[in-house]
C-alpha cells in the first residue's frame, strides 16, 4: 500500500517536473524576443544615460569623465533654469486645467442627452491629430497680423495680444494649445469611470432630497477619484515630456533664453544641435528624477483624496 502511494507521488512529481521543464523552453521562446528588445533598446540605454550624464561627449570621439561638471553647469545656466521653471509651470498649469475641464465635459456628456456620440467625436478629434500639425495650425491661428483669433478679438473690441511673442504670455499660449489637444483623452477616461458609478446611489440620494450639486460633490466626485488619480498621474507624466508642440512653435532660435523652451527641448538642442551629448544626458536624467519625484508625491498624496473603498 505504502509502496504504491510513494510510487504514485513520485509519478506526479515526475510529470510536474517535466511540465515545468517544458514551460522553461516555451518561456524562452515566448518572452525572449520582447525581453531582448526591451533590454537592448530601453533598459541598457536607461542605465547608460545615467553614466553619460557624468561625461563630456561630442557623440564622435570617446567620452571623457566629467564628474559633476555637467550638473553644476546646468544649475548655473540661465537657459536650463528657465527650461526647468517652464517645464514645472507647464505641468502645474496644464494638468489641473485639463483634469478639471475634462471632468466637467465628461459629467455633461454622461447625462442622457442626444448627440452624445457626436460631441464625443468632436472633443476627441485633436487627440488623433499629429502634434506637429496641431502646432502649425495654432501658429497660424495665433498669428499677430493675419491670425483668426486676433481678428475676432478685434471685432469684439478686445485687446489683441502677441500670443507667442509676448514673453509674459507665450508659455500660457502653448499650454492652451496643449490642453486643447489632450483634453479629449481625459474626457474619455473619466467618462468610462463615470459609467461605472451605480445609479442606485443617485436614487437613494434623491429620496433624501439631495440637489444635483450635492450629488456631484458628495457622490460622483468621491466615487471617480481613482479614475481622476490615474488621469492626473498619466497626464502629468506626459506633460513633463512635451516636445513636438514646443519644437514647432519655437522655430529656429537655438541657445536663446526662449520663454517657451522646456527641458526636453533642451535635451534635443544640446544633444543633437550642439553635439553636447553628456550635457544633454544630464538634462534628461534630471527630467527623469523630476518625473519620478512628482509621481511618488502623487502616490503619497493620494491617501488624502482618493477613495478606493466603493
Amino acid at each position, binding site marked *: 500500500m505504502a509502496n504504491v502511494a510513494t510510487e504514485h507521488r513520485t509519478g506526479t512529481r515526475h510529470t510536474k517536473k517535466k511540465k515545468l521543464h517544458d*514551460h522553461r523552453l516555451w518561456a524562452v521562446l515566448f518572452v525572449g524576443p520582447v525581453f531582448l528588445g526591451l533590454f537592448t533598446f530601453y533598459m541598457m540605454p536607461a542605465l547608460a544615460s545615467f553614466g*553619460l550624464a557624468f561625461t563630456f561627449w561630442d557623440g564622435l570621439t570617446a567620452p571623457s569623465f566629467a564628474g559633476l561638471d555637467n550638473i553644476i553647469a546646468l544649475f548655473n545656466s540661465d537657459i536650463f533654469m528657465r527650461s526647468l521653471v517652464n517645464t514645472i509651470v507647464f505641468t502645474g498649469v496644464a494638468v489641473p486645467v485639463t483634469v478639471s475641464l475634462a471632468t466637467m465635459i465628461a459629467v455633461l456628456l454622461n447625462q442622457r442627452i442626444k448627440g452624445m456620440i457626436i460631441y464625443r467625436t468632436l472633443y476627441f478629434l485633436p487627440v488623433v491629430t499629429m502634434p506637429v500639425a496641431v502646432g502649425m495650425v495654432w501658429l*497660424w491661428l495665433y498669428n499677430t497680423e493675419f491670425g483668426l483669433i486676433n481678428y475676432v478679438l478685434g471685432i469684439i473690441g478686445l485687446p489683441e495680444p502677441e500670443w507667442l511673442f509676448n514673453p509674459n504670455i507665450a508659455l500660457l499660449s502653448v499650454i492652451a494649445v496643449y490642453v486643447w489637444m489632450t483634453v479629449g483623452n481625459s474626457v474619455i477616461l473619466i467618462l468610462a469611470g463615470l459609467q461605472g458609478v451605480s445609479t442606485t446611489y443617485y436614487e437613494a440620494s434623491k429620496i433624501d432630497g439631495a440637489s444635483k450639486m450635492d450629488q456631484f460633490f458628495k457622490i460622483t466626485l468621491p466615487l471617480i477619484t481613482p479614475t481622476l488619480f490615474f488621469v492626473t498621474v498619466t497626464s502629468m507624466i506626459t506633460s513633463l515630456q512635451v516636445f513636438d508642440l514646443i519644437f514647432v512653435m519655437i522655430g529656429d532660435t537655438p541657445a536663446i533664453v526662449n520663454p517657451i523652451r522646456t527641458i526636453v527641448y533642451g535635451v534635443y538642442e544640446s544633444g543633437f544641435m550642439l553635439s553636447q551629448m553628456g550635457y544633454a544626458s544630464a538634462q534628461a536624467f534630471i527630467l527623469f528624477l523630476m518625473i519620478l519625484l512628482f509621481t511618488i508625491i502623487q502616490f503619497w498624496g493620494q491617501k488624502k483624496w482618493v477613495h478606493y473603498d466603493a
Partner: protein
Amino acid sequence: MKSKIWIHLVLIVGAVVMVVPFFWMISTSLKTYVESVQIPPTIMPSDPQFSNYLAVFESADFFLYYINTFLMTAGRTLAQLLLCSMAAYAFARLVFPFKNTIFILILSVLMVPMQVILIPNYALLTEFGWVDTFYALIVPGMFSAFGVFLLRQFFMGIPKELDEAALIDGCSHWGIYWRIILPNAKPALVALAIFTILNSWNDFLWPLVMTNSESMRVLSVGIASFQGQYSTDFPLLMAAAFLSTIPMLIMFIFLQKHLIAGISLGGVRR
C-alpha cells in the same frame, strides 16, 4: 428640460472650440496666398485652390514621406502585436523561474521617459550602422512594455478551461496561444494596434533624431522642415498639415468605437 438646453449650450461652445482650428486649417489650405493674408479674412475660400495640394506634392516628396511613415507604422504595429502577445501569453499562462522578476523588470521600462534613452540609443544605432535606415525607425519600436502589460491583463481574464480542453486534444503551447488565446483577445489586440498605429504615425522626436537624409523622412519630420522652408506660405503649410493627418482622422472615424473602448481598457495614449 431647461437644464438640458443649458447642457447642450455649454457642450456646443466647447465643440466649436474643438472644431474651428480644423475648419480654419482646411479653409486656409484652399485659399490663394493673397487671400490668406487678406484683412478682413474670408471665412470660406472665394475660389477653392485644390492646386495647393498638388503644390505640396511638387515642393516636397510627400509621396515618399507617406510610404516611409506607412512602413514605419506597419512594421512597428505588426511586430508589437506578435511579440507582445507572445510574452503576454507566457506571463499569463506559463510557470517558469524568475517570472515575477522578469515581469517587474519589463514594467519598470514604463517609467523611463523616451528622452532619457534617446542619446544612448543614438550611440547604439550608430554602432549598429542603423542611423538613417528603416532599422532605426522600426526595430526599437517593435518592443513595448505597455503592450505586454495590456495584453497580459486581458489574457488573465480568458477562462483557463479553454486551454485545458485544447491541451487534452494535444495542442502545444504555441497551438493554445495561436488558436485559443489570440482569437479570444481581439478587443485587446485591436486596442494595442490602434495605440501603436496612432503613436507611430504621429511620432516626431525619434525619427527627427534617428534619420537625416531627405529620402528617410517621415511625415511629421517632413512637414516640420516644410514649415522651416515656407514659413509664411500658410495655405501651403495648412495643406501639408491636413494631408499628413488625414489617414489618422479617417482611421478614427471608422474605428471610433474600438478606439474609445481601447482607451477605457488600456488607460492612456502612449
